[in-house]
């Protein structure tokens, strides 16, 4: 228990809970209507859409902890939906094969970034910025600005072992978050990621395989972006080049709101997923507030800042405990 109160993620959880409670109160229905925010259906919705950011944010967090940054996830997500769609619709491959192809491409994309950063020695920001253009562009060329419609070939309201396909995203997100939370906190590889992010020279001198660790971080980032792309393609039923445009910043923001520091060496996978949920709840709630649409951007901006400030205050608090 004590460990939880002291966990880095505690403050993020606290903020998420506070947010949900606030909107539960704010969106309390007038008499005669039932609550439109706290319903199983709506929470599934929040999870379903947050998972698109959340799964990729796991990879973003790993990269950021290792002292880098990845601007390509948005583009990789789009490319993956396109590749999956192409294999499934155009080539008529089975879904699992198409999905694997998509994920493979994502991992490859990550490998390219890693190569540019580790071998060629480019700054992560500029390397992944270039790569982002390359993958987005490739996706457009493959689709010729059209799209692949998987939904036609996929069962209408698809249930796997009695569970709606809508749960795919949330389940994958939570599963992966668990796995990588453990890998980053309890295994040597994760310790290495933190060490490299904390002081690269020291890591090198300590005999930590710096290059291999950095490579693994970017490959994972590409891979996880691809997973969220595949989930997107299956759940939403389309492969399209302009999907997830600009999501890279939302994804990084999720990781940062979840405690990752772009200075490197600090952050948490679980926190990143919680960060994605914080934004998911916000997007969902704003739709329920008449006239909010023009205020969306403003509010999200304010919330990002407020959360990070609150987070810092809570951390100081903790430090005192």
């Amino acid at each position, binding site marked *: 228990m004590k460990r939880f109160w002291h966990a880095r993620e505690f403050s993020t959880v606290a903020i998420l809970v506070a947010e949900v409670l606030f909107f539960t109160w704010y969106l309390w229905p007038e008499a005669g209507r039932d609550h*439109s925010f706290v319903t199983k259906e709506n929470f599934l919705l929040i999870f379903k859409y947050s998972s698109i950011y959340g799964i990729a944010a796991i990879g973003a967090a790993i990269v950021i902890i290792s002292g880098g940054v990845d601007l390509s996830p948005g583009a990789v997500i789009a490319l993956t939906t396109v590749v999956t769609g192409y294999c499934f619709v155009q080539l008529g491959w089975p879904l699992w094969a198409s999905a694997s192809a998509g994920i493979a491409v994502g991992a490859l994309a990550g490998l390219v970034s890693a190569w540019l950063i580790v071998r060629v020695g480019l700054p992560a920001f500029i390397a992944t910025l270039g790569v982002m253009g390359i993958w987005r562009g490739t996706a*457009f060329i493959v689709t010729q600005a059209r*799209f692949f419609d998987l939904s*036609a070939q996929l069962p209408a309201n698809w249930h796997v072992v009695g569970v709606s396909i809508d749960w795919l995203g949330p389940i994958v997100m939570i599963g992966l978050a668990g796995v990588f939370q453990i890998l980053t906190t309890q295994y040597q590889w994760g310790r290495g990621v933190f060490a490299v992010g904390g002081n690269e020279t020291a890591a090198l001198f300590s005999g930590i395989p710096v290059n291999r660790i950095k490579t693994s971080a970017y490959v994972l980032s590409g891979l996880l972006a691809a997973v969220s792309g595949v989930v997107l393609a299956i759940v939403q039923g389309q492969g399209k*080049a302009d999907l997830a445009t600009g999501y890279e910043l939302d994804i990084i923001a999720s990781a940062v709101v979840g405690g990752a520091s772009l200075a490197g060496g600090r952050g948490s996978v679980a926190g990143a997923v919680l960060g994605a949920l914080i934004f998911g709840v916000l997007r969902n709630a704003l739709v329920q507030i008449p*006239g909010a649409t023009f205020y969306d951007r403003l509010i999200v901006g304010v919330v990002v800042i407020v959360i990070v400030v609150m987070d810092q205050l809570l951390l100081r608090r903790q430090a005192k405990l």
Partner: protein
Amino acid sequence: EVGKEPAKRTLRFALIPKALDIPVFGYANVGAQRKARQIGGVEVIYHGPERADELKQKEILESFIAQKVDGIAISVLNADFLTSTIDRAIAAGIPVVTWDSDAPKSKRIAFYGVDDYKSGQIMGEEAARLLNGKGTIAFLTSAGANNLQRRLDGAKDALAKFPGIKIVDTFDIQEDSVKCAQFIATGTNRYPNLGAWISVGGWPVFTANALTPVDPKKTKFISFDTNPPAPDLLKAGKVQVLLGQKYFGWGSESVRLLHEIVNGKRPANPIIDSGVDVVTADNVEAYLKMWKTMEGGG
């Protein structure tokens, strides 16, 4: 079962545009709010994605379904993408009408507007008419947006009937009206004797500056959208043809339809063709007068 129970409490209708950053949709909101006031007991919630992001639009649509609004009117960014979701809404007892851009395969109860493909064809034909069937044409579009793609297809298919017409290039402005202006300027340098520009979106006609480099004597200009300042450009002779839609009607008609449906009255024909306004030098004055009354709230 749709719309069985009579409406006592205020009805909450959702009006979902393709994107907020496309100016014409603002007028749909104006029309909808006005109609809501006329009918009374109706609240219109206008909410859309900031940019043409179909994923965010779907999230918004699903969210409205989850909060069980009394009706949804949506301009569909990507028909196949939303069909199943629209059907879910209907199944959940929420009437859905589409406007401006349809989802024909879905169970939506009605559609108000014109088919993008058809309006694209009209642009092509108008261009051919202006060029007397021969000359070069350059297109301006923004890759990724389906409605624009369908207008583009329509226009290109229409032009295919004219062997004398050659399409020199199709420019992707990437949803950036500044790039659009830049492309027009650079394109004019590159193709000095260009016959006509066809813009399947309104970007170039929302400012007088974008068309400055174009010499009307040499190069004709055809663009979508007729809201100010587009008609002034037409009067100034910078543009020859503008294609307008029933921007205010998008909102008012949708609200009217939803209200009737909730009260148990389905439209006889689900497809309600709004028709397009083909605005040229001849009818521009009349059109402006009509616009004034529309915006003024007649």
